């Protein structure tokens, strides 16, 4: 597995048109760590994620994946960089007209030279990793929301990505499924050595899986706290962060 899977965000400013969402963001996601991007609703967490995975271009600043600048690369180079990242979207974002197997097959066909039998074996393996063995020929509409999320994770892992991004992985899941997904994320990080970036405001998940984190603030439009979530809970003096982490009103 590659060890060049760290992320560097340098002086990043994000905006919709001239409307600045967050500015001067500087942080590093180290190889093999589970990094949490947290903050209240509407602070720009998901927008930051869209920047990190190349869906939005920075208003200012740099995003470096494994030391390579995402937006100073050519389109082909950028596609190659992005193909090293797997993304689990909030709703799974499975292609509804395709079976689960076909969903996972698309990136494998696009980026590898595996033959049909090998692709089929990889699909079965990925689905078994997320507890969906035997569901190859099911359409997304035929399985539950939690299963869709896990199938989305299997697709995100299709190419053994160096970096896995999760957008609100616990959203819409019951506490037990949410806990199982957290466990799965940690197991995958430990066994695959992937770097994991999670956008969430679910406190249980934040404390359960986070090695490191940043806290985005809506009003000051920048990072107001950083560090391990547990440490922030214990030591952070910022009232806004304390309120968030302790659910004080």
């Amino acid at each position: 597995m590659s060890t060049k899977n760290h992320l560097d965000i340098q002086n990043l400013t994000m905006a919709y048109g001239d409307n600045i969402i967050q500015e001067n963001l500087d942080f590093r996601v180290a190889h093999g760590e589970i990094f949490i991007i947290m903050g209240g609703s509407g602070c720009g967490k998901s927008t930051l994620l869209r920047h990190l995975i190349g869906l939005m271009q920075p208003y200012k600043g740099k995003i470096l994946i494994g030391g390579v600048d995402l937006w100073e690369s050519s389109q082909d180079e950028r596609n190659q960089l992005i193909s090293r990242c797997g993304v689990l979207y909030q709703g799974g974002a499975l292609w509804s007209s395709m079976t689960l197997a076909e969903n996972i097959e698309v990136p494998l066909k696009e980026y590898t030279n595996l033959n049909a039998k090998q692709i089929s074996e990889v699909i079965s393996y990925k689905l078994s990793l997320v507890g969906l063995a035997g569901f190859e020929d099911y359409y997304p509409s035929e399985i539950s929301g939690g299963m869709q999320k896990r199938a989305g994770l299997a697709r995100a892992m299709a190419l053994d990505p160096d970096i896995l991004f999760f957008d609100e992985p616990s959203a819409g899941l019951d506490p037990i499924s949410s806990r199982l997904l957290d466990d799965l994320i940690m197991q995958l990080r430990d066994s695959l050595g992937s770097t994991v970036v999670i956008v969430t405001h679910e406190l249980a998940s934040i404390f359960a899986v986070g090695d490191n984190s940043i806290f985005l603030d809506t009003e000051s439009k920048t990072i107001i706290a950083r560090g391990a979530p547990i440490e922030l809970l214990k030591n952070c003096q910022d009232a806004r962060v304390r309120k968030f982490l302790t659910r004080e009103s």
Partner: protein
Amino acid sequence: MSTINLDKYQLEVSDSCATLHIYGDWNFSTGIPQLEPLAAQLATVTGCRDLTFNFEKLGDWDSGLMTFLIGLLANCSEQNITVDPKGLPEGIQQLLKLATSVPEREGTRRPVLGQPVLARIGNVTVEMHRNWGDLLAFLGETFYAVLNLLRGRARFRSSDLMYQIEGAGPMALAIITLISTLVGMILAFVGAVQLRMFGAQIFIANLVGLGIAREMGAMMTAIIMAGRTGAAYAAQIGTMQVNEEIDALKTMGISPIEFLVLPRLLALFLMMPLLCVYADFMGILGGAVVSALMLDISFFEYYQQLQSAVALKHFLIGVIKATIFGLIVATSGCFRGMQCGRSASEVGFAATNAVVTSIVLIVVADALVTIICQILGY
């Protein structure tokens, strides 16, 4: 002791034990060896009961190695060979544990082979039967909603009705103008070539006038509206199904038929006759232009001939047809939308089905009305 060298691995066999040495890179980009040669070698080794691993020289690896190992473990299990996982790197052991932690549920996997022909025919028949049931239920509910409307009890927003009227009326004028004028010109052009041979050019007004007023005006308007508005109705309502918006209406005790279908049905019911009259006018005008340019028939002559050939009843027949077609387009579009499944592709199917259903029913209805008019002497 014997050793068997294969691509990227080496099998070392001694007495009842075999050791698999894995070396080099095992990833998608460098290619993954086939399992079959190794499985064949293991099968030929007599007395081999234990398999151990040596991964000391393993380089870069990914899921390719995992699928190979999963296949190998399954093969060993079939051959009653005990596998000692201790030699596996910790990460690989964890992944194998994870992959086998939730065993496949019995009956989950679907048969790979397609269905037999008889089963398919049966399924299509059952589906058609269900469709008919759904259609009858939809028509019944729509009829009930119309009754509620007549009694002033139907619940929908008047702004929705105005919005639908705008969409089905003024917004459709441009395309109706273009298509109707062209159809009138084509009819006149085809007729001009034939009638000129008999010196009967003046009857071009009869051909265009009757053709447009009785048939083509209503028919072309209906086909345009089926493709434009009927498909849009199916897509709009279908998307609402996908987003559970219809369910939200039902749980609030609001009939989706009244709230969504009625405004659309009313909009097309009111707009189609007007669009048809407009299409008739544009088609006849198109015919007049071709007559003037090709046959030297002045607009006045054309008008006079038209007056003698086409009576008000012919226009009325066209308008009645257009009203019926409008109801068909709205009903088909809304019905297919309400029938839509819960995925993006289903919305596409709903829109396509709405157009196909509308056009088929329009042609059937046209034939029926024409026959009825014939019988009644109109």
